[in-house]
């Protein structure tokens, strides 16, 4: 408490000096736009670093493939760090293994927030895992940005105001695939094959919005813990499905294809983005079939129709693919990580985070990051714009349809965008995708 008149005077004088100092500093340093020296403006932010955390399946059932995502994001962050960082700060990305087990997810996220004091939780992977921690993250008012799952549940601005999705949600994806099938396979018999959880069901929900009920002849689901899917495949064949739409993870897409081969059943296969990465699929097919012939896997993925919200790895002329190839060669190739869809995903979501951090300002609080995303983000690596607003926390809103040819996804259509409602129209987005910045780092 300031008691006497003299003390008060001294305090005022001190404050005035401080103000002048601050003003002087900001003048000398105002080139960044926001002004002021770099301060420890929020937990996890120091004058030199921004520490963020994540939970990732580095071992266990979900690890194959998905364990490349965090190293890929980290590779992009390292690239940013070595090219000036975010307003001069370096990103420190601490990702812990949760083995895709919600109980461990809860432990590691508590550690990251309560003990390590991270600024934000970034790209936490998985629906059941992240659902276990999202309420806690929100109760601590920690930004929970760009969850690695297409569940609709992240778009819940009332109970999870600090949580944001990123990838195309499964309902939108189902609608876009469904509308393509409806247009290109008129009158054909259509069967669904889907994972019996929120991923598959949301996908089927979107498909059913678009495909006439009369055309759907069979809906078969699988349990991801049971690899015996022959009965489902036989049922699809018995129903005479000419087109089979599969909302499956890569391992089950491969099993589906091999079971079809076994039954001499060759419908047109349409697979969701999650289960259709050509490199992952080809590897799985070769390993499941124990066939080491070169090109065996690619021969089986030939002709699969799928969708994607990121540029295809085969488009070497695409500025984003060029940029990421450069980063991959420097940071990931020495670690013998393949350059596949997971790596592309990890780098792309890393880019979005850097975009959001630049927008959050030079000395951001946690709320500044949330406000930045709520205010919308410019389209980055994705082919379609983001949905982000204060009332919509979904991420990417559209995708294009393509066919796998010789192990590479080749685009067949333009980009379709839509919303996640039953009646929402599907429109073509003809604005060209913005090119990657020459520096590889988004502009503040």
């Amino acid at each position: 408490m300031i008691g006497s008149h003299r003390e008060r005077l001294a305090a005022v004088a001190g404050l005035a000096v401080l103000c002048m100092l601050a003003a002087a500093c900001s003048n000398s340093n105002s080139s960044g736009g926001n002004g002021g020296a770099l301060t420890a403006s929020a937990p996890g932010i120091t004058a030199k670093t921004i520490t963020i955390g994540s939970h990732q399946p580095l071992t266990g059932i979900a690890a194959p493939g998905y364990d490349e995502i965090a190293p890929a994001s980290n590779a992009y962050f390292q690239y940013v760090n070595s090219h000036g960082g975010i307003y001069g700060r370096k990103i420190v990305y601490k990702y812990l293994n949760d083995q895709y087990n919600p109980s461990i997810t809860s432990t590691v996220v508590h550690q990251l927030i309560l003990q390590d004091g991270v600024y934000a939780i970034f790209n936490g992977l998985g629906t059941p895992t992240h659902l276990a921690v999202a309420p806690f993250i929100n109760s601590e008012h920690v930004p929970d940005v760009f969850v690695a799952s297409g569940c609709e549940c992240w778009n819940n601005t009332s109970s999870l105001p600090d949580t944001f999705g990123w990838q195309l949600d499964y309902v939108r994806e189902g609608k876009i695939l469904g509308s393509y099938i409806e247009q290109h396979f008129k009158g054909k018999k259509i069967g669904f094959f889907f994972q019996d959880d929120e991923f598959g069901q949301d996908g089927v929900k979107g498909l059913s919005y678009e495909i006439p009920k009369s055309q759907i002849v069979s809906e078969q689901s699988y349990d991801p813990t049971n690899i015996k899917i022959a009965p489902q495949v036989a049922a699809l064949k018995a129903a005479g499905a000419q087109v089979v739409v599969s909302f499956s993870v890569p391992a089950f897409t491969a099993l589906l294809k091999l079971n079809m081969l076994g039954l001499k059943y060759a419908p047109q296969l349409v697979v969701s983005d999650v289960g259709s990465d050509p490199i992952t699929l080809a590897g799985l097919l070769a390993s499941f079939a124990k066939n080491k012939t070169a090109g065996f896997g690619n021969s089986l993925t030939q002709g699969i129709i799928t969708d994607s919200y990121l540029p295809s790895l085969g488009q070497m002329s695409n500025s984003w693919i060029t940029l990421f190839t450069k980063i991959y060669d420097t940071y990931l190739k020495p670690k013998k990580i393949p350059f596949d869809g997971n790596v592309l995903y990890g780098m792309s979501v890393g880019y979005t985070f850097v975009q959001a951090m630049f927008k959050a300002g030079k000395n951001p609080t946690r709320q500044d990051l949330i406000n930045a995303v709520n205010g919308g983000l410019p389209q980055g690596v994705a082919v379609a714009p983001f949905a982000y607003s204060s009332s919509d926390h979904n991420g990417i809103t559209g995708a294009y349809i393509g066919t796998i040819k010789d192990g590479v996804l080749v685009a067949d259509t333009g980009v379709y965008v839509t919303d996640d409602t039953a009646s929402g129209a599907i429109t073509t987005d003809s604005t060209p995708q913005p090119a990657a910045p020459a520096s590889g780092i988004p502009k503040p």
Partner: protein
Amino acid sequence: MLPNDLPERPSAGDTVSLPARAGGAARGPLRWRPPTLARHLGWAVLGAIVLGLVTTKLSDFRDYEIAQVAAYLVAVAGLSVLIGLSGQISIGNGAFMAVGGYTSALIFIHLHWPLVVIALAATAVSAVAGAIFGFAAARLRGPYLAGATLLLAVALPSLATRFQSVFGGDQGLGFFVSVPGFLGVSFSLSRYQAWFTCGFALLALVLLANLIRSRVGRNWRALRDDEVAASLAGLNVARLQIRAFVVSAACAGLGGVLLAVVVGTVSAGLFALSLSIQLLTAAVLGGLGSLAGAVWGSAILVLLPSYLQNQSISLGISQAKSGGVPIVAYGVVLIAVMLIFPGGIQGALSRLYAWGRRRPAGDHQEKGST
């Protein structure tokens, strides 16, 4: 400690088993021992005071870890009593945790009962499930019983994905508790979780400790050591076995409730088969049949993995590889403990304690006695 106790000590500890007990019995009437329940309650109150002080001093994350240890402890203690005392094996106690967890989450979502009542109700439901399964289990022995319980651990959680509208499928059910108003706004959630789980854990431990000391506990030990002899002595083998299953299932159910409160959700992944195996390894690591052993086992189960992952990251092992370190280390610890201390950590500690007590005695009197 009375001064005239001291000269008696060496003579009591020196000679082996029978005379030592005789010495103790001779001394018995002189020393007043409080009744079992009062003694256990005393320990529990002491434990509560220590935990209360510790949780207010430690960081939020440590409180959260204590809460986790307490949740696992209840389930591990129940399993340890089942295997160590009644001699039945169960690889499926994770399933009873699922029963408790899902029951509590369903009540929490649909009926909004107070949390304490929810915990008790879910424990009761798990006990009933244990009784039903116990009827079947009482007919099975050894590997067949293990197989049947394993089946339970595999099958029960998949019901959650089968009946999605009720159990929420893969996503599970949300169970996010908030700090009750009377504790004040600044009271941290982790500390509340720690107090809640530790309170129930202490309650469960007191009840189990009394049960072990009671006639039922003695009968279980008789059953474990020789089923035929126990039967000839007039014990109802099947009833005792079912009772052991009920107790262990109730503990597992309560553990499931506490785990759900700590984690903030229930889902099939939370109660996967690996959980049942972890409970078993924690019970074995700590020392079967010992409640103190259950404390060691569950502490290792919770604290070792996160400690090792952080250590390995700070030692410069890449983050991507450090994820595997705890799994390897857990296996190594399990093998090492089984090879060096087959009685588990508590077995090793009590051997160490006995050795420490005998040692000075031997120094004094070895010449005389041998």
